[in-house]
């Protein structure tokens, strides 16, 4: 895959103390859906705005299809942006919003018409051509903003928290719709979001950002199943962190003392014997063992809390040393009262060695 966007040691320092983006190098493949994910203030929006040309980097270069565009203003870049609150022109109809600036591209009257038609057809809102933005719903406005950006056939489309203003139901629906649209038009999408579900559902590649730097880059599965740090494991999905100590380790596996017991874990880097580590466990990867069943890793404890969330139950289990982990129990059938484990029940939990995250250091997030 050829790179469409290449960022080379890109930085934005507002002052020596206030750093927006710090020395980021990143390459985005042509036709990819890449998401910049992170909490507010991690520099993801600043990075996006620099790619769009709305902020000037203090160091580094931005290349678009091999061409250095670092010093170009937004109106000279073949990049378009869908703004967070859509930024539709309130004094223009939907049609004129979408056609905005097409004349400057050298399009004929007829071509403008066809292009506007195609773009609005794509988002399913051609019948709204003559309406004003204030006459549309939030979801419709969002699609018009999308149509307005796509109609110019940019090399890259930037999306700044495109779904954050929509309600939960609509947001879910738009996630798949946006993904489908991206595959259809084949334009590279770079999206900024703080919503991990959004990132997981839509992206080919996710870049998790922390304090202006890249914490980890990878496919959704890579990030979810192999988080590189406590920060990433904490940000994507739910993780319980527990302090542990390495009892024994070779190249690929380690035995770790944890919660009054001991478990085996797969590792991808060497750990020394006696090293203090932080163990991360995902609730949905933990299984409750039936009477007499055995598994590679067994942790014994007592149920101390039961949370019902529709899809299943989340059990808080207190281990022998008093630390607590969570285990999910899916409910494929309607919840019968008898199935709910009572608080105080002794349970045995199993977790496969490849589902145990081992992080160096003791600091639990």
């Amino acid at each position, binding site marked *: 895959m050829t790179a469409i966007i290449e960022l080379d040691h890109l930085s934005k320092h507002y002052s020596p103390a206030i750093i927006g983006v710090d020395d980021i190098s990143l390459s985005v493949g042509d036709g990819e859906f890449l998401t910049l994910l992170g909490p507010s203030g991690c520099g993801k929006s600043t990075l996006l705005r620099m790619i*769009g*040309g*709305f902020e000037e980097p203090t160091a580094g270069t931005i290349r678009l299809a091999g061409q250095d565009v670092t010093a170009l*203003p*937004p*109106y000279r870049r073949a*990049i*378009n*942006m869908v*703004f*967070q*609150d859509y*930024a*539709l*022109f*309130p*004094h*223009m109809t939907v049609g004129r919003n979408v056609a*905005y*600036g097409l004349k*400057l*591209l050298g399009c004929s009257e007829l071509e403008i018409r066809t292009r506007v038609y195609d773009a609005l057809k794509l988002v399913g809102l051609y019948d709204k051509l003559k309406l*004003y*933005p*204030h006459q549309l719903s939030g979801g419709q406005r969002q699609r018009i903003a999308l149509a*307005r*950006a796509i109609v*110019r056939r940019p090399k890259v489309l930037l999306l700044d928290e495109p779904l954050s203003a929509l309600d939960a139901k609509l947001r879910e629906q738009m996630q798949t719709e946006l993904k489908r649209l991206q595959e259809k038009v084949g334009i590279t999408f770079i999206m900024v979001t703080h919503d991990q579900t959004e990132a997981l559902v839509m992206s080919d590649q996710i870049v998790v950002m922390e304090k202006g730097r890249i914490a980890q880059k990878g496919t959704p599965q890579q990030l979810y199943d192999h988080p590189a740090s406590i920060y990433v494991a904490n940000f994507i999905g739910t993780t319980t962190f527990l302090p542990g100590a390495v009892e024994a380790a070779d190249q690929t596996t380690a035995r770790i003392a944890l919660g009054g017991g001991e478990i085996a874990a797969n590792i991808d880097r060497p750990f020394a014997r006696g090293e203090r580590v932080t163990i991360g466990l995902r609730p949905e990867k933990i299984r409750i063992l039936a009477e007499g069943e055995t598994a590679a890793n067994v942790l014994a404890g007592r149920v101390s809390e039961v949370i019902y969330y529709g899809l299943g139950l989340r059990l808080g289990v207190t281990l022998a040393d008093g630390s607590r982990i969570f285990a999910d129990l899916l409910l494929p059938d309607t919840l019968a009262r008898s199935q709910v484990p009572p608080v105080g029940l002794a349970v045995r939990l199993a977790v496969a060695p490849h589902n145990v995250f081992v992080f160096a250091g003791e600091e639990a997030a």
Partner: protein
Amino acid sequence: MSALRRHLPAVLVLGIPLAWIVLFMLLPYGILATYSFWLKKYPTFVPAFQFGNYLTLFTDPQYVLVLLRTIKISLLVCLASLLLAYPFAWFLVYRCRSAQIRTWLYMAVIAPLWISYLLRAYIWKTILGTEGVLNSFLIWAGIIETPSSIFLYNQFSMVVTLTYIFIPFMVMPIYTALEKIPANLNEASADLGLGPWRSFWRVTVPLSMPGVAAGFTLTFCLSFGDFVAPFLVGGPDGNLIANVITTQFGSALNWPLGSALSVVMLVVVLGVVSLGDRVERRSAAGGF
């Protein structure tokens, strides 16, 4: 008894303003309108119902001329204010990065409103007069040799003075309108390939129209009714409609004619206000 007590607050809340409007607005306007149909009969005037006063106004070129001149001066004041106020407000909103400096500059425009109106008009006499600041400067700079009297006592000095006095009323609404335009609209315009100049004409200007309309209305109406500036800095050809009205109620002792003039003036002002209001509403609703 209890009904009275229950309705008392409503009666007070609505009644007092209503009484105020009837007593101090509708009643005087009514009296004015009534007078405008009366007949002048030396040395006073007698009640009548005839359109002689209005006929005089629209047939005597003297009055038509004054009316047209007043409209012209007011429009010039509006235009001059707009050309000065718009770039200033635009600079404050888009280019002035320090909030403190912005506040100071804004206050610098508003502050003169706290000074006596008469004084502000009078200042221009000392600036534009033959012994004034402008002449002294031009002589010092070697541009002219003897003091010139072309700056004062004409329509130019009147437009300058009125522009100076009423420009805050143009700056304030335009500033507010510009400030309300979301920043990302200009970014979106740049994103869609328009340079700053084109973006200004297609986004900033149309979206600030409500402010321009409000500023235009205020400035026009205030200039239209002004009679002090013509009195202080206007020349022999600087009589405005308000001066004529003053004269009719004063030395000419022709109240009916003065009343008719006032009614005409009121109609013009109300026309401008409703026009401005319509422009404001239309552009605010997005239906440009």
